[in-house]
């Protein structure tokens, strides 16, 4: 099961955080900080797995991360997930973002947090991998967007009248 998904930039500023287990606000912040600390000091040419951080309790958990330009994508998973599988899941996630935002960059994540959350919700649900097919994810997200648009259209017209 996936315990948490974190995205932060090279300076440790969180860009997205999603926890599938309950932690208090403070712990969450601490986890982000510590994870950044662990991940950022690793070289480019070392492996993408990190084991046994004290932060997300227990030795069962491990961190799997990828570094893209200015962003770190970190998944914290327990032993029931396949390491390489998650690594590719990150890839899928990033490709999906890329497709949705057309050349995704850090700013997109800042200004469209809600969208990123929606995409993520279609991929991972409650810590379980729901969908791994990029096209499928985009179809779902698009369907929701379309519905939104049609609704806003209906609602907007009376508002403009006012």
């Amino acid at each position: 099961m996936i315990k948490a998904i974190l995205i932060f930039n090279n300076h440790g500023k969180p860009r997205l955080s999603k926890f599938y287990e309950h932690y208090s606000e403070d712990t969450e912040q601490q986890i982000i900080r510590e994870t950044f600390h662990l991940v950022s000091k690793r070289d480019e040419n070392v492996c993408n797995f990190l084991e046994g951080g004290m932060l997300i309790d227990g030795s069962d958990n491990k961190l799997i991360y990828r570094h893209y330009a200015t962003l770190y994508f970190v998944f914290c998973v327990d032993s029931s997930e396949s390491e390489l599988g998650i690594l590719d899941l990150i890839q899928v996630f990033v490709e999906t973002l890329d497709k949705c935002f057309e050349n995704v960059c850090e700013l997109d994540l800042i200004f469209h947090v809600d969208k990123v959350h929606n995409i993520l919700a279609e991929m991972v649900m409650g810590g379980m991998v729901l969908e791994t097919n990029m096209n499928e994810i985009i179809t779902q997200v698009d369907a929701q967007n379309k519905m939104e648009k049609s609704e806003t259209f209906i609602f907007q017209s009376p508002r403009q009248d006012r």
Partner: protein
Amino acid sequence: MRELMVRAMYCEMLGYEADFVYIHAIKLAQQGTVLEKRVGISIFLKQNMYYLQDLQSTNLIEVCMALTVVSQIFPKDMIPAILPLVEEKLSHPKEIIRRKAVLALYKFYLIAPNQVQHIHGKFRKALCDKDPGVMMSSLHIYLQMIKENPASYKDLTGSFVTILRQVVGGKLPLDFNYHSVPAPWLQIQLLRILSLLGREDQSMSELMYDVLDESLRRAEMNHNITYAILYECVKAIYTIHPKAELLEKAARCIGNFVLSPKINLKYLGLKALTYVVQHDANLALQHQMTIIECLDHSDLIIKRETLELLFRITNAQNVTIIVEKMLGFLRLCNDDYTIIDLVGKVAELAEKYPFTIWFIQTMNVVFSLGGDLMQPDLPSNFLRLFADGSESEEQDRQLKLYAVDSYLAVLKGDCSHLPQRFLQVISWVLGEYSCLKEDVDQQEVIRLLKKLLEQRGVSSETRSWALSALTKLCKGPGYAELALELAESLSSSLDTVLRQQAHELCLLSQDSQLHARVLPHPAPSDNLEVDSSLSFLDGFVSDALAAGAAPYKPPHQRQEELSQQRALSLEPYGLSLPVTMSSCTLTDRQSPTFLSMSSDLSVLCVCSANTLMLEGVKRVWGKDGYIPQKEPSLTPAAVDEPSDVVQSPDQQGAAETSLPEPEPEPPQLDQEKQQLASSLFVGLGSQNSMSLLGKTEVAVPRFRRKARQHESASTSGTSESSSNSSHSSRSTTDSFLYGGLLEEEPATPIQNSYHTLNSTSENEGAATVSAKEDKQANSSQILGKSIVSQRNCSKSLPVAFPHSSDSMVLQLPSELQELPHSDVVSLTSDPHLSVSCCRVFREDALLLVLLLFNPTETALRDVAVELSCEEPLMLNTEEYGKLWLSISNDVKQNLKLLTGGGDPLRATLNALKDSLQLHIVDIIGSEGIVACHLLRGGPCLMHCRVHGASLAVWLRSPLPSLPDCLLYHCQRALQEH
């Protein structure tokens, strides 16, 4: 509004408080448009609020969102309310909804398994869903459930295999392909499930061989995700019942992983190796050079993984070098978690081979590096091993002297930076053993300890360790002054324990006799008994009560009363009370007999010694019974290659070519590495790795370990010697138990008793069999031997007894009547003979008197007495397995095997069965299981395995001494054969 919400959410992620938004989020989610709802719900997701309304909506997307909310952490008590709604969604026409519903149910299962019990059938339906996506989600559930209880899902193996075969064969729609690999994540899940199902189950495993082979074959493209599948495959192959052909392929796969230039694959390869070496250490040999390279890798994670691998292959010959490597790594790393983990491992290794200077050195490094992070039982384990000492006095002394020397040296230096635990160990050792060393001035030791005591930054726990060491050293009148000084300075200490110890020190130093009694030297190695009920204080208490003191109330009661007295909440006061109380009780317990640190320790040691027993015991019986052994069929897989590598001794060139060498290196470096390799892998592939260089440079330390019964199972290397010793000790106890009972043939006692009988009661045809029995055996309700057959005495019997019909008074011989005895119980009677029995308790023995009454004319010619206390216990293998797990007392022993004529195991067991009335439950390969039970008593289970020329027997029984008895008789029975 919506925009504001998004901003608020973002702020919250950055760590600012935004609680005030929540109520607006709820409003938004309830009233707003879909768009606004989504934003509101995103905030919900973060805050775990629940929200049910949308589940009933007809709008697809709303339902989707609601399910997403539900699958987030959901409060347990809300599940019953929402469960029917989610369940309903399982039959929704849209597959995405079904999918989400399945996952939501899985989440419920994780939170509260018992509430979802009734819908297991629906999970099965989900598994058979026509949409592969739904099926995929249901695998999450199955993986979890099978992990918890593989046995009840065995029937699904076939379907999983079919699914996997279809997936691998590309039968799924192209949508599921990822980089042209068909549904890789699905495959990974399925492989995991299969490996769980096939573990230790041959018939299930056989179903999977084909499909595993197929996935191995298919997954040959060079993409990350195929490696993921390969890795799972390999793991599955090594988990399920082994098949040589597959193992070979898997081993090749692991080789590819390990040799891969991609770092991630290397990591996984090492992980796989670590997993595999438990089954087959030879595989590590093949890759030794790669492993050596990984040891010097720049990536700490890879290094750690390598060390983990080495840890698994440690044996007596390579332990020094491996521990050295681990300590080297330990010095470099600064991550708490790693340190704790590694320190534990090093200590575990070191403790396997104690009683060498190396052990002390290693533990010293461990203590100084691991510091206060390490597991708290480490120091006490070390001290226990240290105090127990080894077999030879001299060696022991040397070792202790060495330790004292090294610790004195440590204390002389600057010890302010040393961890507290280390200081505690030092003070204990010095207090206990510094007097072994004659040439060291005790004053010097005392001075150092005093320095430690007065040093700043030393915790009060350490202080009390140091003080108790000082107390041990301060004997004789010469130290009274010092003691007084210490006591004075500490009597104002805030710490009550310290203050009390100082007081004790003061008293003890004045009275040397008391000192000698309280702190005998050398410290008694047997365990001090702690009277936890404090019964020795009873007198004191009753005196105090008589003098008008208030009766003692336990702290919780007192606290209750206190809070009752004052109705207000009294948190701070309430809290402070138990703390002081606990320190009080501690001091109470300590004061009368002065249980110094050492005694506390030894108490602790007893506990740890008790728990030690199961460590390293080979698991033969699994949760559902018998686990077939894997070794025999595993070996053929990997033996070929290492022998290729290594059978070319002395020839460096040949060795080099066959060894995996990714990059050419200067020959000297290479040689160094090979040397390292040979020293690391000694003893793994028996003699062959030794010949890698023709010779080994490393002196092979020979470790001896004190043979102790409770540890006989902990190491394979030393188990033989220890089991021998336990053998001897046990047989002595046995012969003690049975002393006079059966060693001598019963002929003599019977003649004696005839003699007595003849003299006392002429008219009774009675025979008395007196059986001596140890009281111990009696108290544990084991009436000794099973069968006594009188062969020798038959000749002495033809004594005609006159018949008298009028009186049938059964009475004991006069000299026995004086003694306490039980009533004469009639066992059985028929017109020709009646038998009664009576137990007589003599001071040194239990006499079993059998009275035979013969009312007929004919004379008794022959009496054969068969005492049987046990009878076969009819069980089948499964019941046996369950029973085995439920019993804890166990005893292990080696028996000799009967040779000649067919299967030695079967022959031996049959012989035992005939002579001891056992029931042979099953014989599987080289192992057999046997059961019996006492008449109206507990069962005894026996598990035998052929081990070379001997039979390794493992007995379990709820009665503590029954296994010992049975073993003794097994030995006897086998000797007679």
